[in-house]
C-alpha cells in the first residue's frame, strides 16, 4: 500500500554530511542481550541513533522497552549478565567497544557522566556530601583547598545557595530535589562532553521537577554538553530535547525533531502514547482517555513482523509477517523516521477505548464528608510542627476532591487524618454522612471504617507480598463486606471483573503482576466494602502513561457506577484536573485555595496555584509566561510570618504579606482564596497569562 519514502533525501544528506565531522554519540546496529536462566534474551535490537555535538536527544517509551539499557550500554556499565551481541558504539569518534579497561576508565572519568532516577544510587549514604564531591576532583589530580573550592563552585553552579553547609551534610539530610542537584553537580564535575540523564526527575514533585529541568536547560547552554535524556514523561522530553526517539521492544520505532514528532506523530505507538495523556484540560465527563491494550513484548521475544502489531488497531496481515523498515519521512521540518508500513495513516489509529461516558449522576445536596477546623501537630525535636492547620471542607457523593501542593504541604497527612490512621489534634470535627467520626480508627464503627478506604501510591508496599491475590481480596470481602462461602466467591468474581482482572490473576502473588495490574488489585481491595469515599494517594505516579490512562478510566467508571467520592492526590496537575470536580491547594498545611476544578485551573487563582500550574511541563512548547518558585518549601516547624507563602510569592504586595495572615475568603460562590490581593486585582494581574495544565 505504501512505499518506503525515499524521495526526500536531499535535506537529509546535507544534514548527514554536516554532522559527520564528529558526532557526540553514535550507536550503529546495536544489539544487547541479558542472560536469564541460561539463555541470552534480546533487549535492544539493531538500534541505530546519532546524537550531534551539543544536541539534546530524548528517548521515550514504556518502562521495560530498553531505555536504561541504552544508557548503561553507552558507558559499558551493563550488569554482569548483559552483553553487547552486535553493533558499534562510538563516543566522540572513539569506538567504545575497542577501549581497554584503562582507556574505558579514563573515558568515563573524563568525557561521559550519568545521572540516575534515584539520586541515592549516585550518593554514598554514609559519607558527607563535601567529601564525595572533593573525591571526584582528587581523582582528577586536584587536592586540598583547591578541591574544596571547586566543589563549592560546582554546587553554586547547580544553584545550591549555601554550598558550605550542604557539604557538611549527609545525603539523607537533603530533600530529594536537593540530592538530585548534588548528583547533577557530581556528574558535571568532570566537565563531560556527553551527559546521560536516565529519568532524572521522575521521583520529584512537579515544582522541584520544573526547577531541576530548568537547571539542566541552563547548564546545557553553559556547558555545551550533548545530552541523552531518558524519560517516560513525554511532556518533559518535549520541553528539554531537540530530537526525540521512541523506543519499543528495544527498537527505534519513530524519530525526529521533538515538536514535529509530538505534533504530527507518524507511528501508531507514538500516537497512542500521546492519546493516553489527559490534555488541554480534558475532564472525566468529557470522555475517557484512550489506552494501549496489551503489553510490551517480554525480553527475548522473537519478533518476526512489526513488534507493535499485537496492540495496533491498524495492523494487517503484512504487519504480522514483514518487519517494517525505518521509513524515511524527512521533509522541510527535518529528518524523521517511522517504523510503520502505514505511517501515513498512523493518526487515523482507531481508539482502543471508546470515549463515551455514562452521564454522571448529579451530586446530591447533602455532603458525604464534612471536615471542620481540623489540625494536626507533630512534635519535631521538641518543637511543634503543624502539618495540617485549620482545614475545613466538604465533599458530596460522587464528587472528586483533588488535593495539590508540593511534597511537604500536608496532603498525605490530611488524607491519613480522614482515614483515622493518624489522630488529629483535639478540636476539629470530621463527619461522615452526618455522623461524627472518632479521631482514632479503633474507635470508629465497622461501617464507618469500611466506608472510607484508600488506594496507596506504591502497590508493592500496599499489597502483602506473602499473600495471593485471592487471599488479599477475599480477606477484604470478608472483613469489609462481611461475606463468606459462596456469596464471597460470587462477589469476588464481580469485583475482579469490575477492575478488569481475570480469574487467572487470583492464584498469583503480587510480585508476579505488573505495576498496573497490582494497582488494579489495590483498587479492587478499596472497593470491596462498597465505600463512600476512597482516598487515592498518587495512585498512578509509579505507572507508565498507557497504564495510567487505564487506571484513570477505571477510577472514573467506578465512580459513575458506584457514586463514590474520591479524594485524589497527585502531583500531576493534568491528571488531577481530569478527575477532580473540586480542588484544594495546600501549602504548609493550610488551604490556600479551594474551589470548583474549572475555576481553580482557569483562574484567577491564588499566586501559589499560579506558580504550580506554570511549573507543569507542557507538550506543546508555546512559551507561556513561567512563574518561578524559588527554593524549597519552608520548614513547617518554623513557618514564615503573615502569609506563609510570602517568602516565595512572585506577586507579594508589601509588608502586609509578612505581617498578617490573609483569611481564606470566598471570592466567588464556592471559590475561596487565601491572599491579600483582591480577586478583581488577581484577575487583572493574571490576565493574558494563559496557563493550561499539561
Amino acid at each position, binding site marked *: 500500500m505504501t512505499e518506503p519514502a525515499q524521495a526526500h533525501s536531499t535535506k537529509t544528506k546535507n544534514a548527514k554530511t554536516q554532522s559527520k565531522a564528529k558526532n557526540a554519540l553514535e550507536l550503529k546496529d546495536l544489539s544487547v542481550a541479558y542472560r536469564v536462566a541460561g539463555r541470552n534474551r534480546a533487549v535492544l535490537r539493531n538500534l541505530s541513533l546519532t546524537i550531534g555535538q551539543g544536541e539534546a536527544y530524548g528517548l521515550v517509551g514504556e518502562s521495560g522497552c530498553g531505555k536504561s539499557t541504552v544508557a548503561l550500554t553507552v558507558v559499558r556499565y551493563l550488569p554482569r549478565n548483559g552483553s553487547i551481541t552486535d553493533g558499534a558504539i562510538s563516543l566522540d569518534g572513539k569506538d567504545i567497544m575497542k577501549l581497554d579497561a584503562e582507556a574505558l576508565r579514563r573515558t568515563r572519568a573524563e568525557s561521559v557522566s550519568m545521572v540516575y532516577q534515584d539520586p541515592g544510587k549516585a550518593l554514598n549514604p554514609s559519607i558527607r556530601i563535601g567529601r564525595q564531591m572533593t573525591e571526584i576532583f582528587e581523582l582528577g589530580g586536584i587536592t586540598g583547598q583547591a578541591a574544596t573550592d571547586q566543589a563549592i563552585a560546582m554546587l553554586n553552579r547547580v544553584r545550591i545557595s549555601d554550598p558550605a553547609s550542604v557539604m557538611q551534610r549527609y545525603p539523607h539530610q537533603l530533600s530529594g530535589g536537593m540530592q538530585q542537584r548534588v548528583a547533577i553537580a557530581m556528574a558535571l564535575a568532570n566537565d563531560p562532553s556527553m551527559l546521560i540523564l536516565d529519568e532524572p526527575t521522575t521521583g520529584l514533585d512537579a515544582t522541584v521537577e520544573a526547577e531541576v529541568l530548568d537547571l539542566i536547560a541552563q547548564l546545557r547552554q553553559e556547558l555545551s554538553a550533548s545530552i541523552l535524556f531518558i524519560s517516560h514523561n513525554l511532556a518533559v522530553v518535549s520541553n528539554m530535547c531537540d530530537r526525540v526517539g521512541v523506543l519499543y521492544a528495544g527498537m527505534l520505532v519513530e524519530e525526529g525533531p521533538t515538536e514535529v514528532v509530538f505534533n504530527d506523530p507518524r507511528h501508531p505507538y507514538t500516537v497512542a502514547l500521546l492519546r493516553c495523556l489527559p490534555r488541554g484540560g480534558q475532564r472525566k465527563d468529557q470522555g475517557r482517555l484512550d489506552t494501549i491494550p496489551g503489553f510490551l*513484548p517480554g525480553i527475548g521475544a522473537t519478533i518476526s513482523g512489526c513488534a507493535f502489531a499485537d496492540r495496533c488497531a*491498524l495492523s494487517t496481515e503484512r*504487519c504480522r509477517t514483514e518487519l517494517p523498515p525505518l521509513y524515511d519521512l524527512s521533509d522541510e521540518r527535518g529528518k524523521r523516521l517511522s517504523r510503520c508500513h502505514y505511517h501515513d495513516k498512523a493518526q487515523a489509529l482507531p481508539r482502543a477505548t471508546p470515549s463515551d461516558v455514562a452521564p454522571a449522576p448529579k451530586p446530591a445536596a447533602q455532603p458525604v464528608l464534612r471536615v471542620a477546623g481540623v489540625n494536626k501537630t507533630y512534635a519535631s525535636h521538641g518543637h511543634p510542627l503543624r502539618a495540617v492547620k485549620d482545614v475545613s471542607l466538604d465533599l458530596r457523593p460522587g464528587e472528586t476532591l483533588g488535593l495539590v501542593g508540593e511534597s511537604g504541604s500536608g496532603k498525605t497527612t490530611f488524607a491519613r487524618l480522614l482515614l483515622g490512621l493518624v489522630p488529629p489534634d483535639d478540636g476539629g470535627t470530621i463527619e461522615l454522612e452526618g455522623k461524627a467520626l472518632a479521631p482514632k*480508627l479503633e474507635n470508629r464503627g465497622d461501617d464507618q*471504617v469500611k466506608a472510607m478506604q484508600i488506594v*496507596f501510591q506504591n502497590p508493592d508496599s500496599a499489597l502483602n507480598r506473602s499473600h495471593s491475590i485471592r487471599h488479599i481480596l477475599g480477606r477484604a470481602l470478608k472483613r469489609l463486606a462481611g461475606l463468606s462461602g459462596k456469596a464471597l466467591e460470587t462477589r469476588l468474581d464481580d469485583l475482579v471483573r469490575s477492575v478488569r482482572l481475570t480469574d487467572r490473576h487470583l492464584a498469583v*502473588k503480587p510480585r508476579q503482576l505488573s505495576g498496573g495490574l497490582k494497582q488494579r488489585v489495590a483498587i479492587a481491595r478499596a472497593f470491596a466494602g462498597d465505600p463512600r469515599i476512597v482516598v487515592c494517594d498518587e495512585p498512578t505516579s509509579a505507572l507508565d502513561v498507557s497504564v495510567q490512562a487505564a487506571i484513570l478510566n477505571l477510577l472514573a467508571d467506578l465512580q459513575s457506577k458506584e457514586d463514590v467520592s474520591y479524594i485524589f492526590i497527585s502531583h500531576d496537575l493534568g491528571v488531577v484536573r481530569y478527575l477532580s470536580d473540586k480542588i484544594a491547594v495546600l501549602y504548609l498545611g493550610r488551604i490556600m485555595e479551594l474551589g470548583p476544578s474549572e475555576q481553580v485551573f482557569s483562574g484567577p487563582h491564588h499566586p501559589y496555584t499560579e506558580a504550580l500550574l506554570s511549573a507543569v511541563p507542557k507538550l506543546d512548547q508555546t512559551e507561556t509566561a513561567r512563574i518561578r518558585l524559588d527554593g524549597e518549601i519552608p520548614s513547617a516547624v518554623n513557618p514564615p510570618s503573615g502569609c506563609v507563602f510570602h517568602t516565595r510569592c512572585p506577586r507579594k504586595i508589601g509588608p502586609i504579606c509578612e505581617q498578617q495572615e490573609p483569611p481564606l475568603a470566598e471570592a466567588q460562590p464556592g471559590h475561596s482564596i487565601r491572599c491579600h490581593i483582591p480577586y478583581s486585582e488577581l484577575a487583572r494581574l493574571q490576565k493574558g497569562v494563559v496557563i493550561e495544565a499539561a
Partner: protein
Amino acid sequence: MSAVQTTSPVRQDDTRRRSPAAEVLSSLMRSGTFLTGLAIVLFWVACALFGEHFAPYDPLADDIINALSPPSAEHWFGTDQIGRDVFSRVIVGSRDILTVAPLATLLATIAGTALGLLTGYFRGIVDDVVSRILEAFMAIPVVIVALLAIVALGTSKTTVIIVIGLSFAPIIARTVRSAVLAERELDYVAAAQLRHESAFHTMFVEILPNVIPPILVETTVRLGYAIFAVATLSFMGFGIQPPSPDWGLSISSNYGMIGGGFWWTVLFDALAIASLVIGVNLAADGVHGAFND
C-alpha cells in the same frame, strides 16, 4: 482495514518466574559453604540416629582390664577410665546434644519471634518495657541463669532446653523486632487496620510471613551457639547426666586425665563438638548468603 487475526508476530520467550522460596533453595544448592556444612551436620545426625548399628562396641559397656588403652587397631580412639570404647562413644555421643540444642533453639525462636512481633508491632510503651526487661535478661550470664534454673527445676534435659531457649530468645526477639519495625511502615499494615483486623491477625497473618527470612537466618546462627552452650553446660555438670556418652559430659569426666597423658579420652570428643559447631555455622553462613543475594 480491520486487523486480520493470524498468528502474533511476537513470540514471547517465557521466562518462568520462580517463587522466592525456589530461588533461595536453588541458591542454597549452589553454595559450597552451605553444602559442606550440611554434609557435616547430616553426618552427625546419621550417627545420632543409627550410630549403635555401626559402632564397634557398646558405648556404655565397661571393660576395666582394658581401661585407658591408647588408640590401636582394636580401639581406634582408645578407651576411657573404665575401658569404654571412645570411638563408639563419640559416634553415639551426638544423640543428646542433637535433641537438646535444636529443641532449645526452637523454643528460643518461638519465644523470640512472639516477643519481637509484640515489641515491633506495638512499639511505644510495650516496646519500652519488654525491651528493657529483655536487655536486663541478656545481661545475666547463661551460667547464672542455669544455676537458678537447676535450683528451681533440678538437672534434666528439659532444664537445659529451657535455660538455653530463654537465654537466646531475647537475641532472636531483637532481630525479629527490627524486621517488624520495617514491615510495619509498609502500607499493607495500614490496609489491615483499615479492615479493623485484630492485632493478632496483623502480627501473625500479615507481618510474620514477611519476616521469615531473617528469622531463619538467626535461627541457624543460634543453633551453632546452642550446641556450644549445651556442651558447655554438660561439661560443667549442669546439663546432660551420666551415663550418657554425651561429648561435653565425657570431656568433663575425663579432662583430669590429660595431665596423665591420656589425651585420647578428651581430644576426640572435643573435635566432635568443634566439627558440629563448624558444620552448623557453615550451613548458617550459606543460609544467610542465600537470603541476602
